């Protein structure tokens, strides 16, 4: 178990300081918006990492809790008229319950079949959201389908920097919570389940329960990000449930370094701001994400954090100090934890 943080506290503080200063340099609204969505996506990527990195359950349907919370938020405020805080809380609970369900279904499955099942579940939800106009709002407008469902917000035209700071605060809180979880006793057990389910089981760990816990916890954080996304966009749309979104989360996590929480957050921020800031059309963006992921998987299996650690240990060896050899790496070629 590696306890050293991949990013030192000093660098972290410097990064947050820069992000706090950024809106004061009066950038244009578009760039602020890119960063705001970047913060929410980074929290989403970290929540993928709780399930797919720390716990090793490769999910390709992580957009399901994200989108479920976004839709719950929109429906509860617009159709049922719930107050916003109550709707957000209900949305997060719903996402956790969805995660619990996915975890229960996928707990007996191994390796690639978890990926297959979660992909299928996510696609069912996406088809349901895209193809059917379930609800009609006041004034005879049809809601649902491609256009999505609006969120009834208690404020009008919030200034862009307020949503920027709100999203940044949410990212910091959520990342802190997920880091704490991944380094807690439960997180250690989750890593053991990821490393070798049989060994974990032999040590008396109820692995099905911990798999459900991993999905529930990761999905709750994903749901929080989804609710925040719906509030920021003012609308829940079918793209919140798309396979491309699930895939994006897995990409960020793989590029940053799976199982590190901080790695996916930084990778999500950097890649999202870079690709969005280049004014690329959405299809070109997905194309670049896929290329980045393929190159990472092929040549840098540990992602940025894993590769940096490897380089550091190599440099350490040259200095004559004994390098810390990774025990688990040679067998699967997978673990950098």
């Amino acid at each position, binding site marked *: 178990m590696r306890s050293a943080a991949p990013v030192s506290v000093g660098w972290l503080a410097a990064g947050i300081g820069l992000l706090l200063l950024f809106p004061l340099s009066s950038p244009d609204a578009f760039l602020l918006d890119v960063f705001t969505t970047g913060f929410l996506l980074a929290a989403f990527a970290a929540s993928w990492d709780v399930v797919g990195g720390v716990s090793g359950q490769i999910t390709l349907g992580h957009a399901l809790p994200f989108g479920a919370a976004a839709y719950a938020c929109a429906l509860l405020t617009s159709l049922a008229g719930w107050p916003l805080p109550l709707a957000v809380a209900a949305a997060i609970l719903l996402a956790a319950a969805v995660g619990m369900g996915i975890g229960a279904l996928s707990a007996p499955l191994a390796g690639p079949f978890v990926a297959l099942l979660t992909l299928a579940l996510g696609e069912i939800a996406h*088809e349901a959201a895209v193809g059917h106009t379930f609800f009609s709002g006041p004034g005879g407008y049809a809601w649902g389908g491609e256009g999505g469902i609006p969120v009834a917000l208690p404020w009008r035209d919030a200034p862009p920097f307020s949503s920027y700071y709100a999203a940044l605060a949410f990212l910091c809180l959520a990342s802190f919570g997920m880091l704490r979880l991944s380094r807690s006793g439960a997180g250690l057990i989750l890593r053991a389940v990821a490393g070798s389910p049989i060994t974990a089981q032999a040590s008396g760990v109820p692995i099905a329960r911990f798999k459900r816990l991993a999905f529930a916890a990761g999905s709750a954080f994903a749901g929080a990000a989804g609710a925040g996304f719906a509030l920021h966009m003012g609308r829940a749309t079918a793209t919140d449930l798309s396979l491309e979104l699930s895939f994006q989360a897995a990409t960020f996590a793989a590029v940053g370094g*799976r199982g590190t929480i901080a790695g996916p957050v930084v990778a999500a921020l950097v890649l999202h701001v870079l690709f969005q800031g280049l004014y690329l059309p959405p299809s070109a963006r997905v194309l670049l994400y896929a290329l980045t992921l393929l190159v990472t998987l092929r040549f840098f299996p540990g992602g940025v954090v894993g590769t940096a650690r490897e380089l550091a240990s190599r440099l350490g060896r040259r200095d004559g100090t004994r390098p810390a050899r990774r025990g688990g790496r040679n067998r699967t070629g997978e673990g950098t934890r």
Partner: protein
Amino acid sequence: MAHPLLQVLLDGLFAGAAYALMAAGMALILGVVKVINLSHGAFFTLGAYVAYALAGRGIGSPIAAAPIAAVIAFAFGVFLGKSFVNPVRSRPFALPVGTLACALLFEQAAQRIWGPHPLSIEAGAPWVGPGGLVLRRWGVIAFLSSAALLGGLKWVLSARPGLPLRLIAEDEEIAGSLGMDVEAIRYLTFGGACAMAAAAGALLSPSGAVTPTMGRAPLLLSLVVVIVAGMDSVGAIFLLSIGLGIFGGACAWFLSPQWSYVALLAAVCLLLSVRPAGIVVTAGRLD
């Protein structure tokens, strides 16, 4: 006018035969390379777009388009197999996510090249059979050529040339110790299986709209077929694919085309819940 159910049955039979070609490719990859290839549907789409591009240049017949699509897909498949799948096949994370990345990469590339809108290919005049039953030209061609190709595959696998494939599927260490180039056979098999998916796509391209995401439903169908029928019997794969083809056609006719996709997704979920062992994939344990 014949009974619509009869017509659905007939069209499903034709489409199912081509799906069997694709599912047999999936089973080959599972047996020999021992990975689940989530980019299999993208090769189906590639075949359909090749057929579309050829039809625009005057080569309208799927009989001509299918081999050309197969050759192109073989080249891409060998590249993918040699430079990505073989090196990462012992990593449980990289395979499903990486092959999905390839599929999305191709979907987006197709969207940039041909646009997101559904395209259609001139299907040729159908033959009208007894009782007003419409015998579609593409359907007859797809059925006959798929059945012939699968028959050929069954023969090759059971005869001398298929021996290395069967041996690697059973025990790759013994195959290697006998002097077989296991790596090369793996990526050649991968390429061949991708060619089969592309041929299926080219054969079925006149049956409906050609879109960048059209390969997703056949991918799921192949997965269902391989989970249920296993990868040993070409005959079982053929019959089950035809069954699912008819089922999909019936769903599309009585409900809406979208429902056949959802039904396949639900079938995957249900099958994985009922049979958690799924299909035996041993990659990652052998290394």
